[in-house]
């Protein structure tokens, strides 16, 4: 079970919700990984599995605290996940060019793993492309959720006549602990 740190904020949910969330989050993540990895064998794929993984992060943040969710999956990690997914997709496409075929060639380029039909490591590039799309969608879902969750701070800035987040630099945001 995931054990979060002690809540820093005032937002609290009932202990039943917290316990069920702590038990279910690993299984939801595992189901998302299953959807991504078996994308070329069963219904599902990168988008659906990525959304399932992102939903588990969002559930964690909703059941506990925004800051607890941020501690579990930092913003930097999520941005890295999204970027790595897109770059994995593009680099898999470029392998086809380096082998002398078109961009994103699958069967003709014989990019590994081309195993037996119906096995896990079959389908050529589909496996890696599913992985890339899954990482991208998981990172983006959670990051955009947090961005919209923290958007309400802007009213605070308007009331106190401070600069809005997009008008400030990152150093100022890091220094400001009042919010």
């Amino acid at each position, binding site marked *: 079970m995931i054990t979060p740190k002690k809540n820093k904020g005032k937002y609290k949910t009932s202990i039943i919700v917290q316990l069920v969330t702590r038990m279910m989050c690993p299984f939801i993540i595992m189901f998302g990984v299953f959807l991504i990895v078996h994308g070329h064998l069963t219904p599902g*794929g990168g988008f659906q599995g990525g959304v399932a993984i992102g939903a588990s992060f969002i559930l964690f943040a909703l059941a506990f605290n925004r800051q607890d969710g941020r501690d579990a999956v930092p913003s*930097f990690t999520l941005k890295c996940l999204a*970027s790595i997914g897109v770059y994995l997709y593009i680099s898999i496409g470029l392998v086809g060019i380096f082998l002398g075929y078109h961009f994103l060639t699958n069967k003709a380029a014989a990019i590994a793993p081309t195993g037996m039909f*119906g096995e896990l490591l*079959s*389908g050529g590039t*589909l496996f890696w492309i599913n992985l890339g799309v899954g990482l991208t969608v998981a990172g983006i879902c959670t990051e955009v959720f947090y961005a919209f969750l923290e958007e309400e701070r802007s009213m605070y800035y308007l009331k106190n006549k401070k600069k809005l*987040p997009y008008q400030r630099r990152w150093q100022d*945001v890091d220094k400001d602990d009042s919010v």
Partner: protein
Amino acid sequence: MKKFAPAILFTIFAFSMIVVVLRFAPIGDPHLPGYAGFDHSENTEKEICEMTKKEVVQYADSVALHYNRHSPGDTGALDIITAIIFDYRAYDTLIEATVLFTAMIGVLSIIGTKRN
């Protein structure tokens, strides 16, 4: 002239779109070539220039049948949907992923989050 240019452009685009919509086939007709399909095995040796007009239309619309028959051999994937969106239309999915990524960059640059 600046006032009338949008109106002229609008009429041109609206007219062309209405013309296209009027030429649509009836939706859901079971006798449409897209639903009926087209047998590739009989006409493999026939060139497109030798076909009749009806056969050419059927040939163009029988993509679904081609996916059904040849996607496991072409891609090596059991799931036809994954084979279509990640292999036959991989460019489309690539642009989808980059559009999502760009949307995230836009949201973060406008709203902004703390680093942790």
